[in-house]
């Protein structure tokens, strides 16, 4: 029982990342009609916002401690972060400790800016081009982005721990009288993802802006005929999608240490998620994200791998194939989208 | 007994009864027009005839064989060709190539690999396609990229492509929609010429009364998914029910 609950939690957690990336992909596809292979790279950039901020906060000045030796036998250089010097060791240390949540504040403007620049500078010119061209140019961009990150941060993963208060394990089952320990940060991550997803849906559902965008996703021409500048709104949606991917990345950083190729690792799976959910369907993307996350978790249990050896390696693809063959447009796909 | 017999066809989309009790008989070598106001179910009916939709009830017989349950290319192979509202041609291909494809389809059926032989070396096909282009008055355009032609030329090419298959029944879905007057008249002339010169049955869905009365020798009026009346053009013109349901509305 609790083993099953644990795997559901794991699935929801994995699914959160898939769902957030897939949500952004679907937004971009639905609004701009662009297949964005650089979306994984945006996720990665978000994670590196967290890395950057925690490095920035740890920028240090150096004092020489002659009583200790470094590895070459020279006097040890002691590094003290400026933050600690300015705010005193305790406040300074706790600012550093909360680097990841703080980076949300950094990531939102950075990712929106990245999104705007990307859309205005590059993607805009590709609205009318073939999907293959869009794929190639965004794939090129993804390579460039990840190589730039690799150039500055190296290829090795960089540990970005959560604040001390949010490390460790919480017993979720305590209220119900059974044992269900789960890492606090993963609960935070899931809740955060749910909040962002809810926020995006609420934004699209209840604001005039969102209504216009939804109308534009359904029928761009008609909305254009009403004299509404749909393109500008779509640009903003691109920035929002970038921000969503970035936030997903920021919060993911403490779960698994970021590295420069994490975007590519997620990209393929996210595309599978989008397609299984149904190209152009936002609820489909979210539902498929969580569904595949949970299936992946269950497929990796010993019970599953002993029943069908290797099932954990291929489950997502098997599910994708089955869904696409039985439901031609994915779980909630719209007719006529991406079928040319 | 007509070449196309539609019996008791009904089609529902969710809560909407798009077609009900449609009975229709298209006589061989006639030009049969199906008219009706917007939303009368004309396009739905047409889609039921070519295999794009499957009716919930009733039967559709072409030359004594049921078309139901067959996919579009099979129905086409039975001898039914369709002209679309917006011309559906192979925009990336030249005019001649466009014309060669139905010639291949007529001769070789729905699939045949000719992977190695040069297509221009197949004189039989090339000649037939070129002759068809002459018939269509487009011989001078044969090397043109078909997407770059005018709408009227595209329509002409599409009709020609349908004829190249020597169909027994030609279905036209508002063939002059969105056309300038001159193009419309050209198209009317072309269709007249076709029905005069060839052994072919034409069924036409049309909005434009000028076109309908210039061409048709039999008219079915569809209203709210069901046939209102079927008669010859003169009687239709004078029928008050039709005026009320349809002509009045457009006036």
């Amino acid at each position, binding site marked *: 029982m609790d083993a099953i609950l644990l795997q559901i939690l794991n699935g929801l957690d994995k699914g959160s990342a898939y769902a957030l990336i897939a949500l952004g992909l679907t937004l971009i596809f639905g609004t701009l009609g662009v297949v964005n292979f650089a979306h994984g790279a945006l996720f990665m950039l978000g994670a590196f916002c967290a890395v950057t901020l925690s490095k920035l906060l740890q920028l240090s000045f150096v004092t020489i401690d002659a009583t200790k030796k470094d590895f070459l036998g020279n006097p040890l250089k002691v590094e003290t972060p400026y933050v600690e010097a300015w705010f005193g060791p305790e406040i300074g240390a706790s600012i550093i400790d909360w680097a990841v949540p703080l980076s949300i504040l950094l990531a939102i403007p950075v990712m929106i800016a990245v999104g705007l620049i990307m859309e205005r500078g590059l993607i805009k010119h590709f609205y009318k081009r073939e*999907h293959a061209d869009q794929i190639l140019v965004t794939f090129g961009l993804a390579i460039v982005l990840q190589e730039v990150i690799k150039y500055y941060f190296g290829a090795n993963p960089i540990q970005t721990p959560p604040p001390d208060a949010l490390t460790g394990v919480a017993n979720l089952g305590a209220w119900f009288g059974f044992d269900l320990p789960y890492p606090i940060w993963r609960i935070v991550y899931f809740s955060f993802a749910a909040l962002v997803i809810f926020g995006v849906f609420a934004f699209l559902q209840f604001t005039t802006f969102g209504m216009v965008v939804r109308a534009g996703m359904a029928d761009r021409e008609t909305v254009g005929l009403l004299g509404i500048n749909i393109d500008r709104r779509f640009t903003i949606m691109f920035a929002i999608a970038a921000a969503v991917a970035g936030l997903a990345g920021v919060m993911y950083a403490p779960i698994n240490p970021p590295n420069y190729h994490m975007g590519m690792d997620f990209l393929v799976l996210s595309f599978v998620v989008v397609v299984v959910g149904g190209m152009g369907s936002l609820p489909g993307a979210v539902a498929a994200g969580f569904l595949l996350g949970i299936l992946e978790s269950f497929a990796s249990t010993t019970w599953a791998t002993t029943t069908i050896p290797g099932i954990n390696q291929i489950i997502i*693809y098997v599910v994708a194939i089955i869904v696409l063959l039985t439901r031609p447009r994915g779980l909630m796909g719209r007719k006529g989208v991406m079928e040319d | 007994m007509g070449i196309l017999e539609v019996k008791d066809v009904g089609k529902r989309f969710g809560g909407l009864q798009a077609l009900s009790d449609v009975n229709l008989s298209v006589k061989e070598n006639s030009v049969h027009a199906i008219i009706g106001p917007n939303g009368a179910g004309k396009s739905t009916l047409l889609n039921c005839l070519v295999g794009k939709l499957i009716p919930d009830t009733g039967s559709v017989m072409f030359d004594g064989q049921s078309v139901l349950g067959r996919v579009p290319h099979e129905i086409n192979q039975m001898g039914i060709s369709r002209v679309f509202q917006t011309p559906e041609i192979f925009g990336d291909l030249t005019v001649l190539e466009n014309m060669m*494809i139905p010639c291949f389809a007529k001769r070789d059926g729905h*699939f045949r690999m000719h992977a190695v032989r040069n297509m221009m070396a197949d004189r039989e096909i090339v000649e037939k396609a070129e002759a068809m282009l002459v018939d269509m008055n487009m011989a001078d355009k044969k090397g043109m990229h078909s997407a770059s032609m005018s709408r009227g030329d595209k329509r002409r090419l599409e009709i020609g492509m349908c004829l190249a298959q020597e169909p027994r029944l030609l279905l036209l879905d508002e063939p002059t929609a969105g056309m300038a007057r001159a193009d419309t008249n050209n198209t009317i002339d072309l269709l007249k010429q076709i029905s005069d010169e060839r052994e072919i049955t034409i069924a036409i869905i049309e909005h434009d009364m000028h076109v309908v009365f210039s061409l048709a020798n039999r008219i079915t009026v569809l209203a709210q998914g069901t046939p209102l009346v079927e008669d010859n053009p003169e009687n239709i013109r004078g029928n008050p029910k039709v005026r009320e349901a349809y002509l009045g509305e457009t006036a």
Partner: protein
Amino acid sequence: MLGLNNKKDFTLLLVVAALTLLAPFVLNPFPSDSAMAQFNAGYPDLMQRFVIFGIFAVGFNILFGLTGYLSFGHAAFLGVGSYASVWMFKLLSYNIVPAILLAVVMASIFALLIGYVSLRRSGIYFSILTLAFAQMSFALAYSVLSNPKFNLTNGETGLQVYANDPQVFHRAGLPDVPHLFGLSMRSTYTMDVGAWSFSFNVGYYISAIVLLLVFYLAIRIFRSPFGMMLRAIKSNQTRMSYTGLNPRPYTLAAFVISGAYAGLAGGLMAAMDPLAGAERMQWTASGEVVLMTILGGTGTLIGPILGAGFIKYFENIFSKINDTVLHQWFAFMPDGMEDFMVFVIKPFVGKGWNLTLGIMFMLVVIFLPGGLVEGGQRLGKWIKNRGKSKDSPAKTEPAE
């Protein structure tokens, strides 16, 4: 000539023939002891790669260029071809003929199965289906099918020939490397002309001849009624079915043909180097052939070959330019200047070659939507126009 009605096609074939057969000269323009020798590509391994990936891309283009169906899983067929070949080496002998035959047959069978299922969908749904199949194949090859009980692929290490393999037709006197009836793929004749050195490798020439054959076949397919049908499918599937034609057997045939090309490439790859690694089935490998095709020019005949050459050149030549080489290049400059140049160029070469490749993709797609072929055409036009304006008013040339 050769059944090619179009003079342009025949010229194209001649150009490709000349390029491939003279590649050892064309690719080695710099004397082998000059600083520019770094950019020479005329050594057997890279030349083999050029033509093998050329075959792969030409085949991929038959599917993608003609029908517009974008497969993200073609590397799987290449991998299947390689595994089939190496198994032939292990079981029969190092002779490449049965190996390559089985490679083509196995890849075609796989393509038939995967294509039959995937082609039930189109657009991005088709792409994702092929991707899913390919990733499954990769996972199976990398770990599931390499377990000690049933070791079909030898997993991470790659399938290779061991001394205790049966090799039932292996005879003394035959080379212990892949060969064509005794003619080793590895034999190379090196010709030294002054400061230049040119290598003529048996494996390369066999691959090159195969490339010419399949390129010729591709031209025939492009110009055949079948090719026209495929282009018609890309252009308008609706009209296709309302002309009484069933698109699916055509697309399936194209899928199988391009799968067979991939299998052939995989077989040749194993013939040049008898080791089949699972990585060549990964989605990134499938992505690579997509990039080659688009980079060269989708739907053009020669584009995929150019694209393949371009990417492989980058991978093998740019990745080898390290600090030492850079310092050597700019040694003639004053010290500060030299260090500055090295500093500027360093991120783009050596371990940064991926960055340059990414930038190239973007530049080509942005400025040359038709790929390198379009670039070439524009250049040709520009030169022509320049020539014209000089000795105008020459008679207007008839349109091609």
